[in-house]
């Protein structure tokens, strides 16, 4: 008997008492107004830097945030950054290339106001996951129309089969005497540009 068959058999035997639990009462909140001010507050709470700009000013705003020197990763060249050394990941950048990059600029899939969360889904203006992981500075451009109130509604806007990365602040650890230290792995600096 294969392990699979044996385990399935054990499960069926274990459930011989035929438990029939009542279905879950879905009375928790599934939606709330998309409070962009709250979103910005929660981001700042996590030590992300928040910027606001109009749609026409994305380029200049981002240019003003980026580190002065160094290569900038811009997936699929979705944003023009005149005068900057830009890599689009085509051809594919090696981990060492990414490690040497100064920053990465992307869009996102959805933002969650209550938790200050930004979700990436490896879409065109975001690129594969490594692009937003290895460089030390990540600039995310979020359209205010992409912000929802709560976690349950964020799920309705996401495709579960895409690789998803949920980001709520720069990386941190509290493993040494419970003191929160920012930036172990992952970008140590997170800039969020709110557009709209």
């Amino acid at each position, binding site marked *: 008997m294969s*392990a699979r068959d044996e*385990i*399935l058999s*054990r*499960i*069926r*035997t*274990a*459930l011989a*008492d035929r*438990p*029939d*639990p*009542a*279905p*879950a*009462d*879905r*009375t*928790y*909140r*599934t939606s709330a107004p998309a409070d962009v001010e709250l979103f910005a507050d929660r981001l700042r709470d*996590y030590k992300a830097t928040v910027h606001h700009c109009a749609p026409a000013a994305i380029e200049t705003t981002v240019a003003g945030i980026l580190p002065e020197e160094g290569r900038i990763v811009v997936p699929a060249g979705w944003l023009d950054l005149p005068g900057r050394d830009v890599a689009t990941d085509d051809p594919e950048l090696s*981990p*060492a290339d990414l*490690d040497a990059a100064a920053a990465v600029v992307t869009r996102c899939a959805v933002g969650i106001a209550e*938790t200050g969360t930004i979700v990436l889904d*490896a879409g065109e203006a975001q690129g594969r*996951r*490594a692009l937003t*992981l*290895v460089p030390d500075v990540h600039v995310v451009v979020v359209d205010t129309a992409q912000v929802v109130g*709560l*976690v*349950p509604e*964020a*799920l*309705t806007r996401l495709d*579960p*089969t*895409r*690789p*998803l*990365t*949920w*980001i*709520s602040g720069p*990386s*941190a*650890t*509290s*493993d*040494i*005497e*419970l*003191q929160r*230290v920012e930036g*172990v*792995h*992952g970008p140590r600096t997170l800039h969020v540009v709110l557009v709209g």
Partner: protein
Amino acid sequence: MTSPPTAHPVTELRAAEPFPVNAAVQLRNEQLRRNLAGATRTIRTKRANVVGELPDWSELRAAGAAIKDDVLAHLDTYLLQLEERVTANGGVVHWARDGAEANRIVTGLVQARHATEVVKVKSMATQEIGLNEALAEAGITAVETDLAELIVQLGHEKPSHILVPAIHKNRDEIRELFQREIPTAGTIATSEPRVLAEVARRHLRAKFLSTPVAISGANFAVAETGTLGVVESEGNGRMCLTLPRTLITVMGLEKLVPTWADLGVFLQLLPRSSTGERMNPYTSMWTGAVEGQEFHLVLMDNGRTATLADPDGRDALRCIRCSACLNVCPVYERTGGHAYGSVYPGPIGAVLSPQLTGVRENLSLPFASTLCGACLDACPVAIDIPRMLVHLRAKAVEAKGPTAESAAMRLAASTMRSPRRWRMALRAARAGRVLGRRDGVIHRLPFPLTGLLRGWTAVRDLPRPPRRPFRDGTA
């Protein structure tokens, strides 16, 4: 005289000595107690704050419990659905009856790719089965990449807390450890946490960027879509899940949720319960093999079906490994994780470890509790741990067979279920008035009671028995 000792192996889920013995040792560790008290108090407060923020916490909690009960009641169906979805998306699913089999599968996969080093994301499931040790025996080094797990690994120890495994170590000890064990550390100037974290970052970054195989656990798997998720803080999870060519995930059978929408419940319950945050820094989700990677999922039993078979014990499988119960437990706060002898300590450990190993292998854990109930209040999936402990105590007593205690309890029951015999016993107890004659207080009991109640009188006085029991008074 208790039943004769049998040769139970020491494993990741049980210790050689029973809880009271290990606890006595840990109680003497002042630094551990200070660290633990501070840590648990801090996380308790943070948790209370973020839970208090939500107007629908009790609704989420009830939904979480019900969703998990549904998973357990139809576990075979959901596992098959998960397997189908993961496979359809290019992943390979393996099944392991126990830890040894899981270790063999993982080792085989790593060897087939000719890797001698792997990077690991913290995973309770892999700790439970001693995967690192099994890999080491095959000449494969598993590099732990969570800061605390790295600390524990370099120190050759067992973790003492599910969430903050190195809580028993202070910064100076960690600096010393890094200086000794990390070749790239150079001279570490201070013990400031920021400096120590930077040492770990540099050391691990080199590993992340070059190691071809990663091993992880999973916080949940969605049956409906085949999506897996890892919830983390530091970014090492993202590193391990994203950069290597091959990803192997080991997961306990019970870590499923039925639908994509169900994550809306658990992504709120878990971060708020575990680190006391509205959301943890990074959560990664993936379905099957993505971005040209190779993906293997190992579904592991290792005692879970045995736990499932007990209708009074299966609720323990609702556990989402948040550790909220550890942080409110007055016993855990004073003894720490090592006293429990299992990678699952504290309240959940006291009900899960004995069920995974079989109660016979963990007779003392169900008694490592005052039944105060703080754990049940804190549990995001409402596991009735006190009720389960009482249930497991009955199983432990049955497993032990006749003992001096069982004889005494039989005598007590026989006395107390009969009003006549109870009256006689009360009368006889009055003989105890000869003790404590001087100040109405008994400081020490004479032989043969000394042994029986030694635990009491070592620390507390007893009152002198009254002249008349209540029932004989003018009521």
